Structure formats: structure tokens, C-alpha cells
């Protein structure tokens, strides 16, 4: 009796371990499929024109997404100008002053904000900026993405600052350095690799966002360097081209997707390098 039961239990063990390993393999399949196909399709479609030209009129082959790449850069710059200082400031507040109930409220709000669907943030940016300005603009898209960056940066910054040993702060105070100086030049500086990680993470996260840009920056077929004008953005262009009926646009969508993923993977790898080299090993 005992023997047969052990046989059953050991079989059960093997089956479940096998299932767990199988699940891992199954999750790797779409990853490999997506990256493989992306590289395969993207490399073939990528050329110099794609990186230097703006879209050709409908029906003509050729042209590129240069304006979209620049536009994305502009939107991300606006987003960073809004999101990074606010995010880091909130993180500093939470880590250095936010021990009371109010801190928990802010923490909770940041988590709520992190969970708000990006399309809803798009609506809000639309009603705040587009309706007010009466036209679509890169600024509106930047505001939407900036809002999305804040909770990601603030919560990670807080975590990184809390990892700085208390004795460092105390040493600074002991030397008579005022608290603001201590926080900025000692605490934040010590945690800088972690904070940069947080910023890059949030950057990678919003760089590929399409939904909030749909009705804020709208897209543009031409060059635009004015932040108050409609602007092309890489993810937006991919979205439009993917759904178009033209083969040449599909090709360009793949090339754009490859550029986008390369940018994101590079920033993610920098994050990982910073996290593993820095003083603070991330929370993973």
C-alpha cells in the first residue's frame, strides 16, 4: 500500500515539475517568435531612406519614418521634462518625508495612477491640452506620456533612496550640511544609478505607447519641429501603417517596429547594466 502510494506521489511530482518546465518553454515560444519575426522582417525592410526620408504620398513606394523618429524624440523629451522632475520629487518626498499617513496616501495614489489605462490618460490629456489649445499638438502627447512616467519613477526612486544607509545622511548632517543639500548631493547622488534605472525603465515603458498619442499628437506626414503642432510618432506611424492596405507600408511598419524595439532593448540593457554594476542591486 505504502509503496504504491509513493509511486503515485513521485509520479505526481514528476508530472508537475514537467508541467512547470513546459510552461516556461511555452512562454518562451511567443517571445522567440516575436523577436525572430521582427528581426527577420525588420532587417529586410530597413534601409537608409527609411531613416532619412519622410513618408511618400499614398501609393508611391519608398519614403521613410525620419519625421516620426524625430517626432517621437520630441514627445519623449517633453514627457521627460514633465515626468522626471515630478517623479523624482515625489520619490524624494516619499522616502525622506513621507512616513506619515499622508505619505501612504501619495503612495497609494501613485499606484492607482500606475494602473490607469493609457487610453484614459490620453482622454485626459486631450481634454486638458487639446481642447484648451483647440488643436492637436506634440505637447499634448508629451503631457500624456509625462503623466504616465510619474508613478513609475516616483515609486522606484523612493525604493532606491530608502536603500541608502541612514548613516550617510547622519554623517552629512554631522558636518553641518543642510538637509536639502544632504538629500540632493549625498542621498540622491548615492542612489543615482538606481534612480537612472527608474528613469530609463519609465522611458522604455512610454516610448512604445501608442494609445495616448492617438488623439493628442495625431500624427503628421511631414517634418514638424514645433511642439504646438501635430507631430508624427514612431509607434503611431507603425499603428497606422500596419492597418493600411499597402504592402510597402507594412514593410515600413516592420522596419519601424524594429527601430522601436532596438531603442527599448538598448535602454533596458543599460538599466540592467547599471543595476548590476551599481552599489544597489535592484529588488529583483
Amino acid at each position, binding site marked *: 500500500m505504502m509503496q504504491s502510494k509513493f509511486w503515485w506521489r513521485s509520479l*505526481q*511530482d514528476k508530472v*508537475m*515539475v514537467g508541467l*512547470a518546465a513546459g*510552461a*516556461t518553454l511555452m*512562454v518562451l515560444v511567443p*517571445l522567440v*517568435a*516575436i523577436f525572430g*519575426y*521582427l528581426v527577420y522582417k525588420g532587417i529586410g525592410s530597413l534601409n537608409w531612406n527609411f531613416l532619412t526620408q519622410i513618408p511618400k504620398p499614398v501609393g508611391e513606394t519608398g519614403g521613410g519614418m525620419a519625421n516620426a523618429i524625430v517626432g517621437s524624440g520630441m514627445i519623449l523629451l517633453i514627457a521627460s521634462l514633465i515626468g522626471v522632475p*515630478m*517623479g523624482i*520629487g*515625489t520619490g524624494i*518626498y516619499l522616502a525622506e*518625508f513621507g512616513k*506619515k499617513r499622508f505619505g501612504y496616501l501619495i503612495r497609494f*495614489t501613485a499606484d*492607482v*495612477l*500606475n*494602473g*490607469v*489605462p*493609457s*487610453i*484614459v*490618460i490620453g*482622454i*485626459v490629456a486631450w*481634454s*486638458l491640452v487639446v481642447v484648451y489649445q483647440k488643436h492637436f499638438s506634440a505637447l499634448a502627447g508629451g503631457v500624456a506620456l509625462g503623466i504616465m512616467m*510619474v508613478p513609475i519613477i*516616483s515609486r522606484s526612486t523612493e*525604493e532606491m533612496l530608502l536603500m541608502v544607509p*541612514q548613516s550617510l545622511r*547622519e554623517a552629512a*548632517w554631522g558636518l553641518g550640511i543642510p*538637509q*536639502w543639500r544632504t538629500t540632493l548631493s549625498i542621498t540622491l547622488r548615492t542612489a543615482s544609478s538606481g534612480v537612472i534605472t*527608474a528613469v530609463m525603465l519609465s522611458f*522604455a*515603458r512610454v*516610448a*512604445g505607447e501608442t*494609445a495616448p498619442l492617438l488623439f493628442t499628437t*495625431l500624427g503628421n506626414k511631414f517634418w514638424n519641429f514645433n511642439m504646438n503642432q501635430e507631430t508624427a510618432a514612431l*509607434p503611431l506611424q*507603425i*499603428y497606422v501603417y*500596419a*492597418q493600411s492596405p499597402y504592402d510597402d507600408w507594412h514593410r515600413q*511598419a516592420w522596419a519601424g517596429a524594429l527601430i*522601436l524595439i532596438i531603442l*527599448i532593448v538598448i535602454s533596458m540593457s543599460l538599466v*540592467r547594466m547599471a543595476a548590476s554594476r551599481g552599489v544597489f542591486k535592484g529588488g*529583483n
Partner: protein
Amino acid sequence: MLKQMNGPLLKTKAQPNSAGPSPEEPAALVPRRKFEHKSSRFADATFRYLMLACALSVLAIVVLIVRELILSSALARHAFGFKFFVTQVWDPVSGDFGALPFIYGTLVSSLLALILAVPLSIGVATFTTELCPQRLRSLLSYVVELLATIPSVIYGLWGMYVLVPFLRQYVQPFLAKYFGWTGLFGGYQFGYSMLAAGIILAIMIIPIVTSITREVMSAVPTAQREGVLAIGATRWEMIRVGVLRNARTGIMGAIILGLGRALGETIAVTMLIGNRPEIAKSLFAPGYTLASVIANEFSEASDDLYLSALVEIGLALFLITLLVNIVAQLMVWSITRGSAQRATA
């Protein structure tokens, strides 16, 4: 300790915690004050208020989101009332709007995604935390993280040109042949369907569910595992009794957080679900979600009522995800004591 560090007490209080509970003598304050620059107290206060302003802005953003959604949807809310959420008509031309097909599409595609993603995610989390060799562990977690960094639009692109043709050619005929009797797999096999949306959503939420599950599983004390092993359990019994059972609230939280993500996911779903506001039993039929209808129609909405109906859909989406996220956050917090954020970010 930190909250005491403002005002003139700053320097005297800044002694190591371990110095003991003895309070500073007031006398110590007097000589210290001489060295304190007048400006530093002002600068400290300014700095503090600046940081507070940043923190308050987070609060303000959320309040602003709610306010804008409520204000901009006023027209539709007054025109349709609660009927908006239970009627099926979506007719911009005659100005008749009901959100039921979108709510249905959102719920069904997200639930389908959960059904597909949860077993896989728990499997991956179990494998990486309990079973796989140490060296493989960080590689696997990196790979799963990579899956999380792929933008939605790239999932959509891949879905349109790889997943949908694959479904149409192989999966849908197979399901129709062997499981057609359930009624879930009937009708035309376009490829663009609730099924395609559910699969892509599953791939997209696996990283989130996995990383939080992994985190709550690592939070289970090793002593639990050792205890169960010591009474002669197999590895699987150890995982089931020692780990999964202890981490179940957190895992539930991870699942609900994944649900929150799936509910609000826009672009990939819009590209794959077929975008037809109908309620159909078959998973092969095209559907429509709350987020996709906003994405597709918002910039084309011609009149105010139409626009405000779309904003009301946004409001509904916001409230649903808010509720789901709060529940999930509380469940994860109860296990990991507030450190769930890194996993989701």
C-alpha cells in the same frame, strides 16, 4: 526618525538611532544654533515644500483625471443615464449609444487572457523560484522581463501578420472540428476575433503575473519549505503545501493586477479583435472593447454627444480598472508589505 528632522532641531537630532532613547538636553541646542546659517533653514523649508508640491501633483493628477472624465461625459450621462451600460445599440449617426457590447468584449477578452495566462504564469514562477538551477534563474527572469518591454503596437503588428494567419489556417479549423459542439468555436473563421485578442492579451499579461507571483513566492520563508520537506514531502508537495498555499493571497493579487492590465490594454486588442460592436457566443466572432472603441472613434467623433459617450466609456473603463487595481494592490501588499511596485513597473 525622519519626521523630526526639520527646523532648528535638525543637527542635534541627527544622531545614530542606536544612540538610545535619551532625549537631547535643551542646552545642546544653544551653541549649535550659532553655526546654523539662517539661509539653510529657509532653504530646507523651501526644499521640503517643493518635494511636497511634487507629491501633491500626483494626487492632483488623479483628481484631475476623475474630474475631466466626469465633466466631459456629462452630456452622455444625462442623455442616457444608467441605460447606457445595458443597451446594445451603438449608432453614431442617429445618436443612440449603448456600451454593453464593449463591456462584454472587454470582460470576455480579459477573462480569456486570464484563463490562458494564469496557469502558464504560475508554472513559470514556480519553475524559476523553486526548480531551476540558480544560473538559469536570472536569465529566465530577464527573458520574461523582455516580454514586458515589447510595446503594445508591436504585439499588434505581430498579431496581425503572424498570429491571425496562424489561427485562421491551423487553430480555428482544429478547434471548430473537435470542440465545435461547445458552441464557442462556430461561425466564420476570419482570424480577427475575440480568440486572437485573448491570446495576445495573455502573452502581454504573462510577464506581470509571473513577476509578481515570483515575488510573493520568494517572500515565503525558507523555513516553510524546509519544514514540509523534512516530513518527507516530494518537491511538488513542498511547492503546493509549503509555497503556493502560503502565497495564494498574493498570487490572487497578481492575477487581478494582470486582469487590470488586460482590461485597459488598447492598441494590440484594437488591431486584432475585429472591432464589431456585437455580442456573439462564438470566440471566433469579432468583438469590440471599451478601450478599442475609444482608440478607433475618438478622433473621428463628429458631434458632442458622440464624444461625450466615448468619454463616458473611458470613465467606465477607469472605474473598472481602479476597482480591480485597488483590490489587487491590497492583496499583494498584504503579502509583500508594499514592495509590489517594482514588479509592476
